[in-house]
């Protein structure tokens, strides 16, 4: 582990409330370069909200977030310029249904990075090739399987050259037989040195791909450690209960 290098993502004292409901109650988290950090926890524990705060799709109520040393909350920060540095993959894919796979990937390349059409399409095609879907470039989302849609969504984030990628339950909406193709792409990203923060229920994947596993409950980080520590010898009672529950 290269812990002497500065973290890509640094979260300090992060809080988020919706009205009276406190969803995040002071989260401290660092993700180091090339690290794959896995977040697990019962539903409603605040995992997704944490992820969505990391690119300010949700506006945090308090605390600080920095990406690659840039304070995300600072007034002077151009959030849209930062967001392309933070790739995000959603549970429900959220592909644009009126655009082809290529169009989905190329849109931000053209409108955010200002690339010319031909250049954007070449980059988009390369990104689609990385997720193994170059031949589906002209297909529309409705013509793709769930697994293919999610891989296009990964390509869409990947094409912008992100420093870190956030995965919000990327396989939860998929039929079981399609999960593997998405996990394979994620493994390849990991092997290629991508920094990743993943919320997911794929415990087997966590076990063999994650560098670190974080267990969250009720808006707090309860316990963190290597996959081995968390899955085989959790210290906290709540973690033990959760691991026992999912192991059944």
């Amino acid at each position, binding site marked *: 582990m290269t812990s002497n290098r500065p973290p890509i993502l640094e979260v300090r004292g992060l809080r988020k409330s919706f009205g009276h409901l406190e969803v995040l109650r002071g989260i401290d988290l660092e993700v180091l370069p090339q690290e794959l950090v896995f977040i697990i926890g019962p539903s409603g524990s605040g995992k997704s909200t944490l992820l969505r705060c990391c*690119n300010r*799709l949700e506006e945090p109520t308090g605390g600080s977030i920095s990406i690659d040393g840039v304070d995300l909350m600072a007034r002077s920060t151009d959030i849209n310029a930062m967001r392309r540095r*933070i790739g995000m993959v959603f549970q429900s894919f959220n592909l*644009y249904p009126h655009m082809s796979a290529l169009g989905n990937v190329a*849109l931000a390349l053209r*409108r955010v990075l200002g690339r010319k059409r031909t250049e954007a399409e070449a980059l988009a095609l390369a990104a689609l090739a990385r997720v193994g879907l170059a031949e589906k470039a002209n297909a529309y989302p409705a013509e793709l399987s769930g697994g293919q849609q999610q891989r296009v969504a990964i390509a869409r*984030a990947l094409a912008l050259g992100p420093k870190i990628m956030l995965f919000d339950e990327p396989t939860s909406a998929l039929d079981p037989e399609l999960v593997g193709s998405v996990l394979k792409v994620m493994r390849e990203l990991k092997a290629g040195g991508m920094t990743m923060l993943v919320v997911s229920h794929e415990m087997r994947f966590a076990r063999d791909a994650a560098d670190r596993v974080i267990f969250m409950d009720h808006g707090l980080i309860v316990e963190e450690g290597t996959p081995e520590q968390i899955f085989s010898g959790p210290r906290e009672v709540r973690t033990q209960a959760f691991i026992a529950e999912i192991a059944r």
Partner: protein
Amino acid sequence: MQALLQQFFDFAIMARALPLLLTGLGQTLVLCLVVIPLGLIGGLLVALTSLARSRAVRWSAAAAIDFFRAIPPLVLLIFVYAGLPFAGIRLSPLAAVAIAFLLNNSSYYGEIYRAGIESVGHGQWDAARSTGLKARQALIYVVLPQAVRNVLPDLISNTVEVVKLTSLASVVALPELLYSADMARSITFNTSPIVLAAGIYLVMLWPIVRLVSRLERRIAS
């Protein structure tokens, strides 16, 4: 029966009135080219206002929409054409029609766009924003194209209503299709020119009405 045919379907009179009616049709088409784009653009602005973040802005947009939906378009038109001169604003019939219909049509188109924008899932905004698109870009490239497609039948059927509405311009003496037909009627003392005008409206609008019915049925199923 003979009287009925003579009164409504006198082809000789129709033939004589046709050139006048075609000139009127030209005016009707010009009117449509002015009024429809104005309504489509005005409606979009209204929709964006009614989706604004500030509650006060949203509320005033809704109030304005409701106000103009409560007033018959003919009343608006006459108010603009015959009322505003008392405030020193004298408008040509075309300008009066354009303004009155802009107010009326923007409210209707606006509600349709709003429904369309609301029908696009929030995930689309999330995805667009997460790749760094600005809110305006997300609206233009991601949300609006889907919104328009979702409410296309409503947009088209409202446009049919707008075309029908142009017949009201005859009341302020704008020589469009119905005005020309009514003029021909008053000269010939025969209703056939109005039947001919009705026929022209049908040729223009019936196919669109059919199309909308089919589109609606396809979306409903």
